[in-house]
């Protein structure tokens, strides 16, 4: 069982308090009706399925209740960072560099 840092609570807590919520940074189109079938299918179904560092969402469902974003290595389960929903996507190269230190 891994531990996850909640960027809202400021605490690192057992995975059991959290729920995984899929890939991050997939915005629901503002005007869905203007989407072509292909665009809408892309939004609904297509995901990266990354082997390695993955931008993904978690929810501190048994704690503060917030959804937030994380970068986790899907091979090792290592979390490079977590950040609040709405914050910009961090630069992966910088994250990996910091992690190597």
């Amino acid at each position, binding site marked *: *069982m891994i531990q996850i840092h909640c960027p809202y609570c400021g605490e690192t807590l057992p995975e059991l308090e959290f729920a995984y919520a899929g890939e991050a940074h997939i915005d*629901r189109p503002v005007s*869905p*009706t203007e989407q072509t079938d292909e665009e*809408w299918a892309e939004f609904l179904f297509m995901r990266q399925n990354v082997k390695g560092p993955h931008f993904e969402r978690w929810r501190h469902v048994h704690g503060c209740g917030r*959804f937030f974003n994380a970068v986790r290595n899907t091979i090792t*389960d*290592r979390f490079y960072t977590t950040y609040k*929903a*709405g914050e910009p996507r961090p630069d992966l190269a910088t994250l990996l560099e910091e992690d190597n230190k």
Partner: protein
Amino acid sequence: MSTYRVRGKGRVDASKPIVFTFDGKPYTGVKGDTVASALLSHGVHLMGRSFKYHRPRGAIAAGSEEPNALIGTRRGAGRFEPNTRATVQEIWEGLETTSQNKFPSLKFDVGAVNDAAYMMFSAGFYYKTFMWPRSFWDKVYEPFIRAAAGLGVSPTEHDPDTYASRNLYCDLLIVGAGPAGIAAAREASGKGLSVVLVDENAEMGGSILSEPQAKIEGKTSWDWLSDELADLKAAGVKLMTRTTAIAYYHENLIGLVEKLTDHLPTLPADTPRERMWRVRAKQVVLAQGALEKPLVFHGNDRPGVMLAGSAQTYLNRYGVKVGNSPVVVTSHDSAWYAAFDLQDAGAYVQAIVDTRAQVRQDLQAEARARGIPVKLSHTVTATGGRLRVNNVRVNPLSGTNVGAGQWIKCDALLMSGGWTPSLHLFSHTKGSLTWDDDLTTFLPKDTPEDCVITGASRGLWGTEAALRDGATRVGEALAKLGVEATATEYTVADDRTGSGVMMRELPTDRSPGKAKAFVDFQNDVTAKDLRLAVREGMRSIEHVKRYTTNGMATDQGKMSNINGLNIAADALGKKQPQVGLTTFRPPYTPTTFGAFAGYHRGEHFEVVRKTQIDGWAEENGAVFEPVGQWRRARYFPKAGETMDQAVTRECAATRASVGIFDASTLGKIEVVGPDAAEFVNRMYTNPFLKLAPGKCRYGLLLGDDGYIRDDGVIARVEEDRFHVTTTTGGAARVLNMMEDYLQTEWPDLNVWLTSTTEQWSTVALNGPNAAKLLAPFVEGIELTEEAFPHMSCVNCTVAGYPARLWRVSFTGEIGFEINVAAPYGRDLWEKLWEAGQKYDITAYGTETMHVLRAEKGYIIVGQDTDGTVTPQDAGMDWAVGKKKADFVGMRGLKRPDLVAENRKQLVGLLTEDNSWLEEGAQIVFDPKQPIPMTMRGHVTSSYNQGTTGRPIALAVIEGGHSKMGETVYIPMPDRTIAAKITGTVFYDPENSRLKI
């Protein structure tokens, strides 16, 4: 005193005899004995039969790595455990133990015929034998495999013991309380850290317990040990014995299993048998020591053949000589010490046979001084004796030539092939290993976890080296904890250090093809099997392992992995690291299911949620059913009633007068804020912006893919406050989905969601007399058609309690749902019940609720829908707002597949012969088509207890909406049922009964 007990030796208390039984025969051991040490003290080596060949076996080791001496232990009814290691189980007065894998008796076993049919059972036997003919699979092979499978006998009775679990956070966890672990604990103690030291044995000390001759810091090793442990305890170190670290999970989470009662003669109250500790340690020190390797030669499994280090442990820790005239065979210095100790304790060591040509002069001198014959450059090629070794064949070695054999009589054969670092937990961390050519073993290298490994686990040998290494290596962990380390430099006199060489199978002058030279004792894998596997094409050690089952027994290859690798590598002509080591997986030692289940068994198996009215239902004889985590009253049978009869009665009574139903489990979400209407409007298909306060509307919730996810009635309580209801099972899921959209897609909306499922007890009254019954209790609103029409909601007072009263119906009758603060629910229910007697009020459960709603064609999400049903499919296009700019699922509904022809659509079904249909039954159009038939849909709901006087069903059928009146067929095992497609409303299609 028993024959093999040595006075003055060991840590057992000879003044406290303990009687236990083995295969029905009583034996007397002493306090501190294990079953194995007690049996050995009586000269009993034969403790079990092997799994495959049923060969007689004795204890080969003295600890948890034991592969052979597996026994059943019993403590009265229900308390039976198979496959317990006799070398670990402590004895207590009255303990019953039995041997395994024998029939009719341990000494004469019919299954040993497998041993004679040895050639037949060689590697890959199952793969080769049980292939053809195909017709034999079910009738011949499977029964055979099932009969042969399984080690020991499973318990058949309910386990009356309890199990526990606990979470523990600490700064430093040290696994293994041998010299390295204790030295590490010493450095960490008294520094304000929380330190935990665990050991799987009944006593801490590890190898020190077997080495009383050593002097540590000027004290005898045992004095030093007890002083040290007392100091650690005084310094606040948590010391845990009989506690096995079974697994090392991510981020320093270690699973510990603490055995609390297996060693006690009487069971203390309120004490679990085992406790699983989930320890999250900031830093971990692994000091698990090393395991001795057996030597591989013909007859190395005969009872009386055991590891030299274990013989030393039996002598020094338990005061038991494993034999009076042992022979020692070794390729490592350590076994020489075992020979010396046994000789000094009164045994006559017949010979020390060492495969090496050169051995340290001091060891040879000590052997000479004791008069022990030494045979260097010798090998062992066979052993004799039926149920116990009584002689051993020893041959001289000259290069690769094996000279003539000579039989030496003995009553025990002690072997040592050197030592293998215990890297099990280290491997769990995905730590990398490095091959050491000098030690011919894998050593730990890097690990991604915050963990250091120390002592014999790093290939160090000797107490002083282990102490110093423990004290030094822990410094790395302490530094990360911000604590300065001192690294005590221990001095040990009379320390025993040494080295050795790696052997594969011992050289022999006989045909290796006929040798029964065991590598994996528990799975009966021989060196020949491993070589055969390589000859038959296995190249990776992982394949060799699975083909031969080497290392796959309950001991997880603790003794066999390295020997197996050495032999496989030799057969492949490669170096060991090129062949690789199989993966060590948790648990380290066999673990009970109870330890994993902890408190969650029996009635406490999982969370059971109960409403505040549940107690009334229980007292009134309700039959319950689980709905999600809830238990709900399913029906309320009167004496002698079946479910069908009870449900028929409940349905009729509700339609005739009034029924009362506990609807408290419905999910409820309070949506509050200036954007509440906008939010609800975006989430649900129906238009909500213009819903007036005090009104309710049915809502359908879709996913953005367009499929129905949930439904419920939604009330606008105030301008900026909605009370949303969800299905019972969907409550948490729907709230999560709403929070997701709100927090991440529409954070600009000024609205908040609060779960109020449990704020309210919800009592539903339905039936023509519902308003008459309820009216006298209500203050603040008149229950008339004009003042409080269908689909209204009001805050008022009911039976003196502040209430949120709804006029809604899930039955087609006049209906009310009365919400009061949860704790008052039961009182409200009872008041209505009492007043309802004059209307013959009837309590009904979920089954009647299902029937009554089905008669009206109201869907149940998750029963009539399955995640691929759209509102159109369900015939609920009316619930979809046509003028809305957007709602969740709106774009999804226009996906090509969702607007395609011939989708499965929800319809009613009436069987032509009035028979009842199975829910889930498949539907076909042409019953005469060849099998496999084309299935066109399935029955989703089906009831025969309703008010319509005949069975009704709902189904999803391809193009069903355009097939009204057509006949479809439901093939069942015994017959085919014909049914006519109808609309989904079976009762009161005009909704005339909703009017007060």
